[in-house]
């Protein structure tokens, strides 16, 4: 193996690990959002997509198609609004 090949393999491994960790974080965030939505009495069996709008501000798309805006207001309360 040439040094260039080793470097390419290392970069690919790092990228794959980063993607794995990112997907793990997404999965954890999805569970957190789903639990938060359920705690507010709304239906969401599983979050299939989530978008970060800002600090403590997310838009979650559930498996059943429902979309929710989950954020923390100025008083420190978690608010879930159906979009």
């Amino acid at each position, binding site marked *: 193996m040439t040094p260039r090949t080793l470097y390419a393999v290392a970069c690919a491994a790092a990228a794959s690990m980063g993607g794995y960790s990112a997907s793990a974080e997404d999965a954890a965030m999805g569970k957190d959002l789903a639990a*938060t939505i359920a705690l507010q009495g709304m239906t969401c069996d599983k979050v299939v997509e989530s978008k970060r709008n800002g600090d403590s501000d*997310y838009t979650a798309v559930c498996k059943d198609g429902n979309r929710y805006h989950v954020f923390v207001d100025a008083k420190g309360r978690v608010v879930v609004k159906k979009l």
Partner: protein
Amino acid sequence: MRRVVIYGLPVFLMLAGCVSVKNTPPAAEPAPVTAPAPLAPTPQNPPVPASAAQTAEPTAPSAAPPPVTAPATPSPAPARKSQAKPKNVAKTQVTPAPAAPQKTATQQTPTAPSAPATTAAPSRPAAPTLDLAALEQRLRDTRAIGVFTKLSLKNQVDDLLDRFRQFHRRQTPPTLDQLRQQYDLLLLKVLSLLQDGDPSLAQAISSSRSAIWNVLTDPQKFQQI
């Protein structure tokens, strides 16, 4: 041959003496020998409990029945027990004051039932043990639930505490039954969130359920939160 006789005779005599001691308890001869010894210290009761106590030492669990039968039939009980272990009888004759172990043995029988009672007493309060600060810290530190979920749970706990404050101010809207339903629902949410990721914490909270409720419903304890 003479040396064998000289050394063998004392050994034989010693063995014969031991054999005679073993045979004496079942027979009637050793009974009168033991009789004067117990008669000297105390007339009737001491000899009977002495043998009963010494026999009770090897068999602790069966100690309860002997004291009951001891006063009724003093002589037959020691005779049977002495047949089982004659060496103990010899020891009893050597020991001058058997009265002390008798009293302890008889006192142990009443104390025996009291001992399990005392052990059962601490085990009962162990279940409702409550450490709110530790539970709160464990809830903060657990990774079983995410940040949004923790914050949402905290909001709902604060809301419930506000309702309890209203209840303790004698405000009618939240009745105790309503508070109980809300409390159960919130605790159910917490347990459902924790049972998979942190089962030990879920168990701790579940076991503290009634204790927490007692704190919430008691005005004095509630003010200390």
